[in-house]
């Protein structure tokens, strides 16, 4: 547990990361307490007061159906950030399992799995995500699945290289000489050592995943109306850029700030846990 304590303390000290941590805290709070904070329900349409400018009634104005943009951005946090987290954690879990399994067992299984990761990596990420969500049908769940699959090879390769180096290392070999079961070795040695690089990779990937979900939404393959998702909101909103500049701008800012905060914290965590490239 001191790992966590140490990281929090050091993050706070570095002003750069500190502000990002605060932003993230706000984002999470907004996500959780969206219903309380929101001034309107994100779904109810009011055709007569559509495309209103930001004002006292609607802080960020209204969209083409008269829905309150401020509330939709709040609720959008749950979809965009929540789904990104789920997708990445899923990808990390599955990827680590397969990767460490193949790295630890080795021989031909490892070769086959590694070739598959090569093939998956040969695909440009967005195209793969695009094809998958088109194949599975456009919905937020499928978008999350698509992203999980797209990010899988990264974790598989990460876990495999770690598992390989750990399983070759002395203390694991010596443990084996004592006739210790490989399951125990994996649990006691392989997994804990995997934790650090995986955690670093996860913090870096979340920002990217939010962008991917928003881009899929933008291309019409992510979240479907009427769900409030940032990418989809911009996708409709940007047609109104000229007359109602606020509609796409506030949503864009929400994505930008959240992803930036994740990346800064990601950098901070990586510099902290991965001494070589750190301070």
């Amino acid at each position, binding site marked *: 547990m001191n790992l966590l304590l140490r990281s929090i303390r050091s993050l706070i000290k570095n002003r750069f990361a500190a502000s990002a941590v605060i932003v993230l805290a706000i984002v999470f709070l907004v996500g959780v307490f969206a219903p309380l904070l929101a001034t309107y329900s994100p779904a109810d349409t009011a055709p007569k007061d559509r495309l209103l400018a930001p004002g006292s009634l609607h802080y960020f104005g209204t969209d083409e159906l008269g829905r309150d943009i401020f509330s939709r951005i709040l609720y959008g946090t749950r979809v965009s950030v929540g789904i990104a987290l789920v997708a990445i954690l899923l990808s990390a879990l599955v990827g680590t399992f397969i990767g460490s399994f193949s790295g630890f067992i080795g021989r031909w299984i490892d070769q086959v799995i590694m070739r598959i990761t090569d*093939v998956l990596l040969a695909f440009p990420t967005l*195209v793969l995500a*695009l094809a998958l969500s088109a194949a599975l049908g456009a919905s937020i769940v499928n978008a999350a699945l698509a992203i999980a699959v797209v990010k899988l090879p990264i974790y598989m390769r990460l876990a495999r290289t770690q598992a390989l180096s750990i399983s070759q290392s002395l203390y694991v070999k010596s443990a084996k000489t004592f006739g210790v079961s490989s399951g125990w070795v994996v649990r006691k040695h392989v997994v804990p050592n995997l934790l650090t690089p995986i955690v670093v990779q996860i913090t870096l990937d979340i*920002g990217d995943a939010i962008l991917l979900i928003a*881009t899929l939404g933008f291309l019409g393959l992510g979240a479907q109306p009427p769900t409030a998702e940032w990418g989809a909101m911009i996708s409709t909103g*940007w047609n109104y850029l000229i007359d109602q500049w606020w509609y796409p701008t506030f949503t*864009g800012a929400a994505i930008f700030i959240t992803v930036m905060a994740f*990346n800064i914290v990601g950098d901070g965590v990586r510099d902290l846990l991965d001494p070589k490239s750190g301070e």
Partner: protein
Amino acid sequence: MLRLVRQRLAMLVLVLFGVSFITFLMSHVLPGDPAAALAGPHPSKEVLQAIRDQFGLDKPLPVQYLNYLNDLIHGNLGTSIRSQEPVLTELMRYFPTTLELITFAFIFAILLGIPLGVISAVKKNSFTDYVVRLFAVGGVSIPLFWGGLVMILVFYAKLGWFPASGRLDIELTTPETVTGFYTVDTLISGDTEAFFNSVKHLVMPAVALGYVQLAFIVRQVRSSMLDALSQDYYLTGRANGLSKRFLIIRYGLRNALIPSITIIGLSFGSLLGGAVVTETIFDWPGMGKYVTESILGRDFPAIMGFTVIIALAYVIINLLVDLLVYSLDPQTRK
């Protein structure tokens, strides 16, 4: 050296086979029948059937895949369902367009990224370091479709500095294709006005796309520079009184480039599939737009052709990166 090339070619065959198999599966699992999408507003049953026969859509999947494979071997990528044009001709048209965009984006990213990475490493934790890192993180975090849009608003609508769509002004004659790069073809044909115009059209999309890559490069160069500066040989150089500038470039950067080249190569490779978002916003007729429309229009031959070319280009880029590293890093020349 030769061992490296042989190994890469073996991988190429495997990746090609894997990629074509996965795409074939995926594209045929896509719901929706291309014939229905294509046969006009109110087609009769016979017309639908005629289209399906023409594209062999009714044959069992394994048969379709085998036909596809032997076509592939003979270099025939089939005809696109949407545009009735051979897929190969379309790819030969769209691939250089995307390549031109990515190349300019990377020129911008490298020209700016490497110096910034070096400065922020040399001046670690100074004010400049924080500003550069903030600028870099911004690049990785900005949603491209939003950033590009704001750029159009400011630099096209308000200031009118740069055009916002297409590769060349309509009035100018498009250069006849030699390399497929408008900037190069116009120079070959000596049409300077068209050359400057094509550069002007490249500015905004290249900067929008380049800014994201710039962020990767700055972060990578900074971390490998920090690594190089902390090495013993750097201290030896300092102890021997070599000038700071010489040390930074020949001792620091020279060694930091090797890991950075691989990362830059990989991100160049990942863009071969076309920068879908940038191309959509700036009407850049590249691979990104082509594949998006093909996927949405269930154009199987086009999707398959696209993926094969991309896999091919991806492996070639990896080979080039390895060769570059081979020339830069003496240790690989055992």
